[in-house]
């Protein structure tokens, strides 16, 4: 079996999507995960040290 097929079996994209619903707020779990991931990447981009070039002699 191809790895892509394995992934497809784990994340079944054919079923109905899950939604987070709280008062007026409604969003699919997939979209919410992408937004959370963007916030995590944004924080990491600020906090993680950038590799510096070695000082030239």
């Amino acid at each position, binding site marked *: 079996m191809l790895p892509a097929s394995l992934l497809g079996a784990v994340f079944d994209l054919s079923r109905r999507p899950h939604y987070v619903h709280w008062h007026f707020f409604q969003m699919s779990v997939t979209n919410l995960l*992408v937004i959370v*991931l*963007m916030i995590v*990447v*944004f924080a*990491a*981009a*600020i906090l*993680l040290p*950038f590799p*510096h070039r070695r000082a030239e002699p």
Partner: protein
Amino acid sequence: MSAADEPRPARVPADARSWTARLRTRAEGAMPPERLLPDRQPSYVASWIYVFGALTIAALLLIVASGLILGLKGPAWWHVTAIGRFFNGIHLWGVELFFFTMVVHLWGKFFMGAWRGGRSLTWVAGAVTFLISIAAAFTGYLSQQNFDAQWISTQAKDGLNSVGIGAFFNVTNFGQMYTFHVILLPVAVVLLTAWHVLLVRRHGVVPPYVRQLAAEAPARPSEERA
């Protein structure tokens, strides 16, 4: 300063009445060719947050390249063949990457106040590019030629009609939306991105607030007295 001491333009136009010569002189004065590609950057650019603009451009190149292939081969190819579905997937994930990196870039520049120091036009060019990109992605959804596209177009039709612009954009018309998606909006996004990058090259990357405050500190009257 005498007239002889004044800086001269990079190239004196052969004929000042020629609009092409005037345009060339003005373009060379605004952005000399030797400054187009950078070979060094300020030290404060050494942070991961400054990488996301370049990542967005990389994603845009991926979208344009895969989109060209999809456009040349057509809907039957991208729906039926395995290689067509592969390129369809590349195009979709390129767009996901494009918006992901562009939003992180936008957040970074917002919290930096990247419009400071005469850079307001750079900020506006980026913001307009972001808005047009949303329209480009939306027309991409409508151009899929599947049930998803039909559902989105009928929902969007009601939305656009409700705000009074349905007469200008018939989202259920595949030909019209496809032209928007593969010609008009991509050209607008690419040209605006090029202008955005040229403005960044011209005005430089915005310094952090700390540096600006440090640069302004000696001008304080209390320190001048000391």
